[in-house]
């Protein structure tokens, strides 16, 4: 870290009266750079190799998620949410469905909630595995990357077993899930978790005390608690700064208040702390999944409230209520009561906040998603200025930018 006030005066060149602007070089990194996790551009101002200024430019993956959602029916938005965070799509599905359930004022049955917890934690693990694997690869630990992607594959096979797709899951519905647990799923789950634990312990030995790795990440990108709060950090990066804020604990949703888990925190918020926090969160998620699998109750996986899902075919053909419900759901769609809700859930990167406004007509008025990595990318200048160009790679890797949710 360099003395920033001296640096600032050099950039402005006003304190000494000398013009240093000629020695400052502007270099564009991105939009499509191999070490950029997605399409983003950094205009960096360099003094030699030292970063003295940075301006991130985002929006290359803007697909109009909010506009498209506001021109769809409520249920049609679920597939769009898959594409927000494409390494943990189930968490977005769950967040959106829970927000609409909050708008309705209903809750999904307990079996559906426990299944959601399991699938949500699997997604959180895949998210962390991808992030850590990518960081490690970019700073040279290629084995770690391959091992983690192998472990991620174990979990994505579970996701495929449950939803029929690896990424485009489209799995939750309002008041429940599209499918119940497939036969033998819990056995497969236990088997895969065992394999995941093996990978975790191997990789832990490989990297956590590795001097080459530690030299690259320790004291790089440190961030104070005050700045992290002011920048609106949530998730692993905020916890790495030492603030134990986790939506699962602070605003317990679903059945997280019945499960026992710990919230890992770091101390200085550098890239090494972020690495350790994410590693520990994977272990905690495994514990959560095991508890949820043990406690998995019997019962329905879909609410029995009317007008939330298509009625059974025997009701459609057998009684008038079933027929009318089916007709109205097809023709008009879901019609949540007028009102507005904000539903926070803990995503892989931090707080996913869904803000929905309904006027009761069946067309969403506003579908807003708070992207967790938005604030993190916004803080990139604050995190990198004073470091060297090579440090952008671990810092930006640990930010875990996901273009889909950042640009929406």
């Amino acid at each position: 870290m360099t003395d920033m006030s001296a640096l600032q005066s050099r950039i402005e060149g006003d304190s000494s009266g000398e013009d240093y602007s000629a020695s400052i070089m502007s270099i564009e990194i991105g939009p499509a750079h191999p070490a950029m996790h997605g399409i983003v551009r950094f205009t960096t101002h360099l003094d030699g190799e030292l970063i003295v200024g940075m301006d991130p430019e985002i929006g290359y993956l803007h697909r109009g998620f909010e506009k498209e959602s506001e021109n769809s029916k409520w249920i049609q938005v679920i597939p769009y949410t898959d594409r927000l965070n494409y390494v943990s799509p189930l968490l977005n599905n769950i967040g959106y469905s829970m927000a609409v359930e909050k708008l309705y004022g209903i809750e999904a049955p307990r079996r559906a909630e426990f299944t959601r917890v399991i699938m949500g934690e699997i997604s959180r693990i895949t998210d962390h595995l991808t992030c850590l694997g990518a960081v490690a690869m970019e700073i040279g630990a290629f084995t770690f990357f391959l091992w983690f992607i192998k472990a991620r594959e174990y979990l994505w096979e579970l996701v495929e077993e449950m939803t029929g797709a690896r990424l485009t899951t489209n799995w939750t519905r309002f008041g429940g899930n599209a499918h119940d647990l497939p036969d033998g799923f819990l056995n497969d789950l236990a088997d895969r978790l065992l394999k995941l634990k093996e990978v975790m312990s191997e990789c832990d030995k490989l990297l956590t005390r590795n001097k080459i790795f530690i030299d690259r990440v320790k004291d790089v990108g440190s961030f104070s608690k005050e700045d992290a709060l002011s920048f609106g950090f949530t998730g692993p990066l905020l916890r790495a700064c030492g603030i134990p804020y986790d939506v699962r604990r602070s605003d317990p949703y679903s059945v997280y208040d019945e499960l026992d888990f710990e919230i890992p925190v770091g101390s200085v918020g550098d890239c090494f702390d972020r690495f350790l926090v994410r590693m520990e969160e994977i272990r905690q998620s495994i514990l959560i999944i095991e508890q949820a699998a043990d406690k998995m109750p019997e019962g329905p996986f879909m609410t029995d409230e009317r007008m939330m899902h298509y009625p059974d075919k025997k009701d459609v053909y057998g009684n008038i209520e079933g027929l009318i419900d089916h007709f109205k759901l097809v023709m008009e769609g879901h019609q949540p009561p007028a009102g507005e809700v904000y539903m926070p859930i803990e995503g892989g990167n931090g707080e996913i906040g869904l803000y929905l406004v309904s006027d009761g007509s069946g067309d969403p008025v506003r579908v807003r998603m708070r992207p967790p990595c938005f604030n993190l990318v916004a803080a990139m200048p604050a995190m990198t200025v004073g470091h060297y160009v090579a440090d952008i790679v671990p810092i930006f890797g640990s930010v875990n930018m996901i273009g889909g949710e950042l640009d929406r």
Partner: protein
Amino acid sequence: MSEEISTKETEVISEAGELTTLLQEEFPEAVSGFHAHRGDETVVIERDAFEAVCRFLRDDLRCSFEIMMDLTAVDRLEMKETPRFEMVYHFKSLTHARRLRIKVLLTEEDCKIDSIHHLWKAVDWYERECYDMFGIHFEGHPDLRRLLMYDEFEGHPLRKDYPIDKQQPLLELKEVEERHTYGRHT
């Protein structure tokens, strides 16, 4: 069934929460409405007092909202409500473990509001995004550029009167005889 729900909701809405009462005491003229639909405490603030209220929310020990969680706007053109725009701010306090939603109403002709970028650093990009998407002007923002769209883009895409199928390509597109409309009726 529906009657039961509506009476229950009215009760919740007519009851002022702790923070609402506090804001009403501190800024008696600024609070113009409140509700707690589905448990989300919401206070509607007059635009002139907005900056002062935000400062109070951040600094007062009874509030201490450390995190400015989300900032967005709602275009109520199709809801036939006036005024047209509604600014929506979500705050989170870790000290007191609670959330608050602040809303400010803005008319179409005068959609300006004080920037609060100096209170929370997160606000900088949120306001740029909101300006980009809704064309709301944040007075005092040092660098109010578009964030997601490109500089040459005309209009503000999340306004309800911006057509969803409108195209503004930067490069001239080749003539295509039949454009897919993807089954859209409008």
